[in-house]
């Protein structure tokens, strides 16, 4: 998902002729779909771009726990509470798989987390929207995790081995998230009161556009895409993935008996796809810049968690040293 606007620092893609022997050898491997592993030679820009992309992706998983954590103590039943906690634990796990993959590139986890806390590193814009009702837990699972799956399924074929393997694990688990979200909404729409049904529709109204923004800027405004595609860090364009998401989601929306807040949405017989309206890009860039409804709160919560946990980490190290000395004596 979860990586929007990743800088490559490359203005123009080199042709094979312009490359050094090492670069050419590297690019030929990528062209032949041979995975790059941690100890293989790689261009510095490839390494740095991957660190940015994977850390952004990891931060998204970690920050993504916060909107859901908001509802753990208010889940309507024990069953729903257990499901929600399992899902949140998965997000933590996904963050950790990704930080591990990032570390294989020589990045330091603490430094990258510092960048998140200082606002230097980004995470997905979607998590800067608030979760205002219980129905949001369903809509987040269905739409947000649904959008994440569309993105991540293609990333399973990404050129960097550790990233690709993390994606394979994550995709396996992500489908539980989407199904539990959709089932929750379906239960409310089929068996709920009118107030509950209205709550579902309200939730979709608020989250639909932010979910579409998760795929990042339109293709005309993705200056970094060409290099990322050549390196196969990215495998399909933002607009292609966004279209796929809309096409697969609208029939599910109709089954729920709900609508999306887009008067331009309609099936286009000649294209074989749904047409949909223009995203409010000014809102997208504002949220990315840090001016969304929850940006400050999200980062402050993460920072507090790290600071408040410092004594636990120190105590664990002190205990481990003590045990080691005891065993040595």
């Amino acid at each position, binding site marked *: 998902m979860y990586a929007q606007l990743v800088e490559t620092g490359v203005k123009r893609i080199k042709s094979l002729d312009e490359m050094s022997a090492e670069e050419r050898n590297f690019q030929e491997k990528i062209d032949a779909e041979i995975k790059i592993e941690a100890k293989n030679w790689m261009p510095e820009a490839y390494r740095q771009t991957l660190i940015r992309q994977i850390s952004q992706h990891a931060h998204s998983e970690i920050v993504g726990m916060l909107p859901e954590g908001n509802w753990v103590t208010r889940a309507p039943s024990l069953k729903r509470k257990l499901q929600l906690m399992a899902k949140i634990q998965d997000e933590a796990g996904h963050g950790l798989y990704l930080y591990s993959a990032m*570390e294989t590139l020589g990045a330091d986890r603490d430094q990258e987390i510092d960048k998140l806390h200082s606002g230097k590193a980004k995470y997905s814009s979607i998590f800067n929207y608030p979760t205002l009702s219980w129905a949001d837990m369903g809509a987040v699972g269905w739409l947000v995790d649904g959008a994440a799956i569309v993105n991540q399924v293609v990333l399973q074929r990404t050129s960097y081995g550790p990233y690709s393997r993390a994606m394979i694990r994550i995709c396996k688990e992500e489908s539980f998230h989407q199904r539990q979200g959709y089932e929750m909404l379906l239960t409310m729409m089929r068996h709920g009161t009118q107030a509950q049904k209205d709550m579902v529709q309200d939730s979709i109204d608020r989250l639909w556009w932010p979910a579409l923004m998760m795929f990042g800027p339109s293709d005309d405004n993705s200056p970094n895409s060409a290099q990322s595609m050549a390196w196969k860090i990215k495998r399909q364009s933002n607009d292609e993935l966004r279209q796929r998401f809309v096409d697969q989601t609208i029939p599910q929306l109709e089954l729920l008996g709900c609508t999306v807040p887009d008067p331009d949405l309609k099936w286009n017989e000649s294209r074989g796809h749904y047409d949909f309206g223009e995203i409010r890009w000014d809102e997208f860039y504002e949220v990315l810049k840090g001016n969304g409804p929850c940006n400050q709160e999200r980062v402050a919560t993460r920072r507090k968690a790290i600071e408040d946990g410092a004594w636990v980490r120190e105590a*664990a*190290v002190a205990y481990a040293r003590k045990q080691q000395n005891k065993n040595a004596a």
Partner: protein
Amino acid sequence: MSVWTLYEVFVRSKHGLNHKHVGSVHAADSAMAIENARELYTRRSEGVSLWVVPSALITASSPDEKDPLFAPADDKVYRHASFYELPEEVGHM
């Protein structure tokens, strides 16, 4: 968390199979590494046994040595059973 050690994690998915590398965890000591690995890599019954090893203790072959190490095996086809052609009468061997 850099004050903690990086451990590589290996999971035996079921009895009779070998342990397989799945990723890494940070931990203060090896007992904590096992607990963290359990939470991270076996939330859905993916394993029956775990190994953790400090990453710094692993010695790996370098990609540059790939040819000197592995290429000599490529031209030794006589090490494979399929190299030897036997008459049909011998049956399965």
